[in-house]
């Protein structure tokens, strides 16, 4: 009887684990809405020194590598 109970308990625990793993699936990451060949939307944002920067400031002057990062103080 004791062995039966242990087996049942193990099976139940296993089922709970499987359910937990299945629920842990992350939602799909966002897909960029701006595609190659499209005009990059303009913006006005403040830099680390308090200066406003517009994307359009560089129009006709420089190419821009616009690098979105997740958080300050993290890698990458």
């Amino acid at each position, binding site marked *: 009887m004791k062995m039966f109970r242990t087996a049942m308990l193990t099976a139940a625990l296993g089922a709970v684990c499987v359910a937990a793993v299945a629920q842990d699936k*992350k*939602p799909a*990451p*966002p*897909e*960029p*809405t*701006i*595609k*190659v*060949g*499209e*005009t*990059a*939307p303009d*913006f006005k*944002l*403040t*830099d*680390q*020194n*308090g*200066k406003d*920067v517009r*994307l*359009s400031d*560089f*129009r*006709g*002057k*420089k*190419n*821009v*590598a*616009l*690098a*979105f*990062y*997740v*958080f*300050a*103080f993290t*890698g*990458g």
Partner: protein
Amino acid sequence: MKSFQSQLAKLEAADTQVLGVSMDSPFSNKAWADSIGVTFPLLSDWGGDTTRKYGLYNSTYKAARRATFLIGKDGKVLEVHLDKQAVDPHNVVEACERHKLGK
């Protein structure tokens, strides 16, 4: 962003301005730029309007997805790099070469 700083001379030679963007405050960006020695602008998209405009708002993390857009002088997008590809700045240097920027 530190890795972009290491490629800055090559990107400047390709006539390309680096702009970092995140949903951090300007104060966090200032502290971070100082601590890692970043000299290019780190822009604060506080509230995430620009991040959303580019389709990069990740509601799970309440932050942007890692992405780099290479934009030509005409304002048109030349290349889009995502995630790991966006983390390595050599990819954007190579993209500048592919599009013969600064040549």
